[in-house]
């Protein structure tokens, strides 16, 4: 599928970093305000999806810089690993642990749920982009 539009290309190029920043913003605020890993993952996927339509899947893959299926794996492993921290302290699997950092809110609370959410984020991005890129590459 080829869509050779200069306007779309320029827009996509400009929107990609902004949408990624926006998704990061959604991700970080997620624990207290509407947002979170799942939504942020969808927004980030949309950014790359737009880019892949404006250019093509190959270039979008290049900009992404990592194999989408690998992202799925990393996401799942991160989410799983976040559950093990509590076990070293003698608590059950997946119990959330938090530490305080001397930073302004919302960066002052760091905990394993954040790692878990990161896993969700990466898994969602990986799956969505696997779908989209694979569909675009069908000959």
């Amino acid at each position, binding site marked *: 599928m080829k869509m050779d539009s200069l306007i779309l290309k320029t827009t996509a190029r400009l929107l990609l970093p902004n949408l990624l920043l926006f998704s990061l913003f959604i991700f970080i605020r997620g624990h207290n305000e509407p947002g979170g890993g799942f939504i942020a993952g*969808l927004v980030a996927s*949309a950014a790359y999806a737009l880019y892949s339509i404006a250019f093509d899947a190959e270039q979008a893959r290049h900009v992404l810089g990592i194999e989408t299926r690998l992202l799925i794996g990393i996401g799942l492993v991160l989410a799983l690993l976040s559950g093990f921290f509590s076990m070293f302290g003698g608590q059950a699997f997946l119990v959330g642990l938090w530490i305080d950092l001397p930073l302004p809110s919302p960066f002052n609370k760091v905990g394993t749920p954040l790692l*878990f959410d990161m896993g969700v984020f990466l898994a969602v991005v990986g799956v969505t982009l696997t779908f989209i890129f694979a*569909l675009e590459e069908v000959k």
Partner: protein
Amino acid sequence: MIAVSVLSVFAVALLSPLLFRRQNNNISPWLIALLPLGLSAYYISLLPSAAVGNPLTFTRPWAEALGASFSFRADGLGLLFALLISGIGTLVVIYARGYLNQKDLALFYPWLLAFMGAMLGVALSDNLILLFIFWELTSLSSFMLIGFKNEKEAARSSALQALLVTSAGGLAMLAGIILLGMAGGTYEISALLSNRMAVQSHSLYLPALILILLGAFTKSAQFPFHFWLPNAMVAPTPVSAYLHSATMVKAGVYLMARLHPVLGGTDAWTYIVGGVGTLTMLIGGYLALSQTDLKRLLAYSTLSALGTLTMLIGLGTPLALKAAVVLLLAHGLYKGALFLVAGALEHETGTRDVTKLGGLFRVMPITAIGAGVAALSMAGLPPLFGFISKELIYETGLEINLWLTVAIVAMGLFNVFIAIVVGVGPFIGKQTKTPNKAHEVPFSMWLAPTLLAGLSLFAGMFPGEVSSLIISSATSSVVGEAVVVKLKLWHGINPAFLLSIGTVIAGIALFFVRNSLRSVLQKFEWKWGPGYLYNYALEGLMNFANWQTRIIQHGYLRYYLRVIVLILTVSGAVALWRIPSVNLISSFNDSNTSNVMFYDVMLAVLILGSALVAVLSPSRMGAIVALGAAGYLIALIYLFFGAPDLAITQFAIESLTVILFVLAFYHLPKFQTFSSASERKIDAVISLLAGALMTMLVLVAVDVQIASSISHYYIENSLPLAYGRNIVNVILVDFRNLDTLGEITVLGVAGIGVYALLKFRKGKE
């Protein structure tokens, strides 16, 4: 530390492919071998505390409501197994370096190590649920290893057979474990030991026993489930030596030994376990006699040994249990060595047929010495450890009755014969012409068999030290109370010793008439065994699956949709009908219409409008865009009614769905109308019904509260417990994160599935 020792193997299994990224990596196998070597040293260091009845334990809560916990316990029996696993594992890792080529090794080690970790978990778990999980992991890794040469049809079907048989038994075992947990009040093995009386007088005792034994019998290839083991010999030889002789197939024996103090001692136990074991012992030995393939010979003789172990545990006398523990160690040492010798012979000569091998002592002297010593141990000759083991088994038989003694002596005779055929025959006599010209194997391949054979010799020479180090404490675990075992090499001339001399002479005599023996036995080959039954059942299942797939999976999307929506509607309607407390009329009347705003009405009208456009649009693109619009408008409703998270998600999902639709439809042929006008009328009726049902469901759902609401709990505890004000997110990543973990796993699997469907289509590379 025990938990770490088990989990570290899995970690290395995951990381080991990284070691093989460079070409020609000769030292990586040695690096990997350091892990099991270190673990062996660690387990040896735990032996003294286990010997004084104070084993190291480790417990962490897991799913407490289900009775599962991460608890490990390193007692004598567990350590004996752990040492067999890590010790022989070390040697197999090194051996594989010479046996497999570089490319295969990178794929081989992860599965071998995953198996090792799982097997260590089985040996050291103190919780039955945890044990079951490791147990199933060994079945899975065994499947991958039997099918390692996956380009061969025989490898794939044998792998599937082993998996189906052992995991079917595993499922029965899970049911048995749950029943045992109900009878004993706990899943902790060490706690069950003190509940013996309660368990055995419980009405669930017999069902639990039978189900658990099904798991143990399938895993340890007991008759009539024995047929998968000889077929599993298609695996690379290091796998056969390790999984299908020294360790995995003994998991069933381990479980029976482990649970003997809880379940054993009853009539049911003695007759089922002892009977099945005796039968397997004789059938395995008998079937081995006519084999000419080295590995199949060893496989059948392994069946015989597994049967012997099962029989001894079934008999359950202190002497029998002692004999079982000694045989466990002796068999692991000599059979492991002989398997590796068989692999070395095949590697060098290109054949595994014993009738084509001879006179190899001159070209492979080191291998020959290892093979000879291991064979002497298997034949039960002094001063090897196998001698001590066999004498104990003979004494057990003599202690019980004549018939058992006859069966045991027959087994001893088979063993002598097989030992000579495998460990001596290929090396003596005239050198034969083989497909490849034989040389001595490299160091990595003769180290393992000679070391194992040397250990057989060492243990035979110093039985007192071996028994005080490990046999005593392992036997205590099986008996259920502390016992002291004193092993001696020489115990005077007694009936057992005379029987030994007799079997050895008879075995040697049989060897000289081996060719006529084989031709006689091969006339009695019997094809209607359990293996035949398995093939018959599998074929029937496949035919049934094909038949029902042809009927149900017709490939027409429009009929699929119709069936799905109809079934949903009908079952939903039936469910609504059957809830007595629901009054649909009052639901309608109760619905509050006073605070409906003008923009709510506008939204509803717009949603209906876009839905209509989607249905009536003459082009696909139009329909997709209209559907997207409907989705966005619904997201607006979420926003107005205070669910911003849901709204944002819906916006993102709608956008991505439209993109996916456009991408997929791009590849479809031009929009066409396939259905007739009357069919479309039927579709319209079905969709209206479905819509009506959904509307009713929503109205009823608002009214009916089946369980008490837990949202208050989340609202109150979100900030104090989980440090988050966004309750939706806190539920997703903290309170209910196990659900989320499951969901993203499903998502990941779906992603890989779609990728595979699109990328690996028929006719493409």
